[in-house]
């Protein structure tokens, strides 16, 4: 009997405690094992070297992924973290893009930062209704925000250039580097993205993250555990918007222009899809999700291209079908997303041959 209970406890630890670490400090670090640290370093160096290896177009796509991952990550803090759903992330990306379009050239990084900050400020405003409403109601509120933002993007001609949008000068440079070069933009993106990824990971595993999760799971009892609901929700909204805004700034430089079409509902949905497909719960998920979502159209058009031009005409239809079906499949078959899929494979081998 005792052995049995022991094995039950073991089953728990196997599933939930990864490896038992000697000391709490190790348990709390980013990558607590030497291997972990090694792979992290490899990944970062790899990213830094990437532009030297790849030609322009793949770099363009890589930067797109970076942008999507940042915006998705921001949304992840809000959705996966604080459990507040938002269908307005594209609007924040837009706010960031428009703001930063006013400060380009040598000031580009500052412009991007400003974009993030302005977005964060507006994020706080959008967060206010979340103090009173949740779930589906909030989703609709953010949907409304998304539409109103679109309305303003199109109307406030002085700031946004109206329906026509704004265009960066073709020959813009930053510190002597051409801003038309996608590799330069990629580095610009990395400059923001790497610290922001670590920061997000850190936040989620410390105080702010705990407070968000608590609010997500049970906001009433979160209050009674000393969590300041107002502050917690508003920071989540502000941060999420900030990440979106920064992504917008980078996107603006990547395309070289801002027009309202880039910030419509379908993009908000795409960012949400990144969170879902990547797997709510981890920072890594946002990256994987962005990879996936950005690459689907690329892959599809390669396939369609192989069949010949007559199929290209229907491509956008097939793309929406593929996008939708993928989301549904993930939700139904692997709710924990790509990260979960990976975890399951790992678990399977770890517990194989005795799954129980």
């Amino acid at each position, binding site marked *: 009997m005792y052995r049995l209970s022991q094995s039950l*406890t073991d089953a*728990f*630890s196997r*599933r*939930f*405690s*990864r490896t038992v670490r000697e000391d*709490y*400090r190790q*348990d*709390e670090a980013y990558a607590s094992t030497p291997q972990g640290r090694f792979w992290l370093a490899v990944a970062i160096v790899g990213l830094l070297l990437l532009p030297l290896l790849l030609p322009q177009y793949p770099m363009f796509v890589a930067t797109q992924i970076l942008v999507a991952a940042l915006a998705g990550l921001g949304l992840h803090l809000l959705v996966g973290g604080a459990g507040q759903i938002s269908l307005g992330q594209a609007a924040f990306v837009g706010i960031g893009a428009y703001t930063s379009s006013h400060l380009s050239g040598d000031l580009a990084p500052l412009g991007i930062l400003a974009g993030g900050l302005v977005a964060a400020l507006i994020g706080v405003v959008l967060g206010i209704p979340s103090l009173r409403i949740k779930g589906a109601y909030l989703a609709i509120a953010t949907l409304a925000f998304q539409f109103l933002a679109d309305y303003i993007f199109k109307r406030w001609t002085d700031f946004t250039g109206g329906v026509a949008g704004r265009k960066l000068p073709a020959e813009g440079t930053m510190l002597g580097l051409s801003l038309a070069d996608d590799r330069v933009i990629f580095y610009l993106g990395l400059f923001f993205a790497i610290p922001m990824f670590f920061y997000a990971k*850190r*936040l989620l595993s*410390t*105080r*702010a993250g*705990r*407070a968000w*999760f*608590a609010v*997500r*799971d*049970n906001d*009433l*009892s*979160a*209050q*009674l*555990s*000393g*969590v*300041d*609901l107002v*502050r*917690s929700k508003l*920071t989540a909204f502000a*941060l999420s918007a900030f990440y979106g805004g920064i992504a917008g700034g980078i996107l603006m430089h990547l395309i070289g222009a801002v027009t309202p079409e880039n910030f419509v509902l379908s993009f908000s949905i795409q960012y949400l899809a990144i969170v879902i497909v990547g797997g709510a719960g981890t920072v890594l998920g946002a990256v994987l999700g962005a990879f996936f979502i950005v690459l689907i159209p690329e892959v599809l058009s390669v396939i369609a291209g192989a069949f010949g031009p007559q199929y290209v005409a229907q491509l956008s239809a097939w793309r929406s079908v593929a996008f939708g079906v993928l989301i549904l499949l993930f939700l139904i078959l692997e709710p924990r997303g790509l990260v979960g899929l990976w975890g399951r494979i790992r678990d399977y081998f770890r517990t194989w041959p005795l799954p129980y």
Partner: protein
Amino acid sequence: MARVLLEAQDLHLSFRGVKALVGVRFSVSEGDLFAVIGPNGAGKTSLLNVLSGLYRPQQGRVVFLGEDLAGQSPQARVRKGLGRTFQNLELFRGMTVLDNVKLGAELAVGGYTDLAPKAVQEWKIRRHAEEVLDYLHLSPYRHAPAGALPYGLQKRVEVARALAGRPKLLLLDEPMAGLSLEEKQDLARFLLDARREWGVTLVLVEHDLKAVLELSTGVLVMSYGEVLYQGAPAGVRENPRVAEAYLGRSA
């Protein structure tokens, strides 16, 4: 004479015609284990809700450590040292046991601005949380999602979360419901130890009369929002009104 920690003065509360509290007054001194009992729907949970700030009484005051709590938000009260567990489990089901307890521990250890994580502080919180987990024999489950634990363990995690904040006064809403006798005894032990070692004063709402009578230092019996009896545990069984409203024929 120990210091008076909490004082409820003439609390009134009603919901669309239902009277949940009618002029309830009592006081709890430091080191007490104050029990509140009464039939179902008597207003016990409502009383705790008023104390912890979830309901606003229509009349009356709550004084904690000599300060009137009127108008203070629930989380402000918790920060002042007024901890709480719930009748129906209100754990953060998706978080691990450890994170649940850490969240509580922040209250005791002191946090930091949440946007600027500090590793040192985080380790302190962790150490403190582990101590409480150890104490309540929850360490093996620290990485399990709280929602997947059996009911009894979840109750214990809830106690752990509240205790980790080192409250001065802990409000417990039926912590023993659904536990077997042996487990009740274990829990009683934990509570008594916490009281002794950490100086936590306890307010206990409970239906297990035997436990209440054996553990408490003072008892308040409520029925339909009114106070039926207040005093030493020994007097509860003798009181005819209590017997009629609460105990039934077996008394």
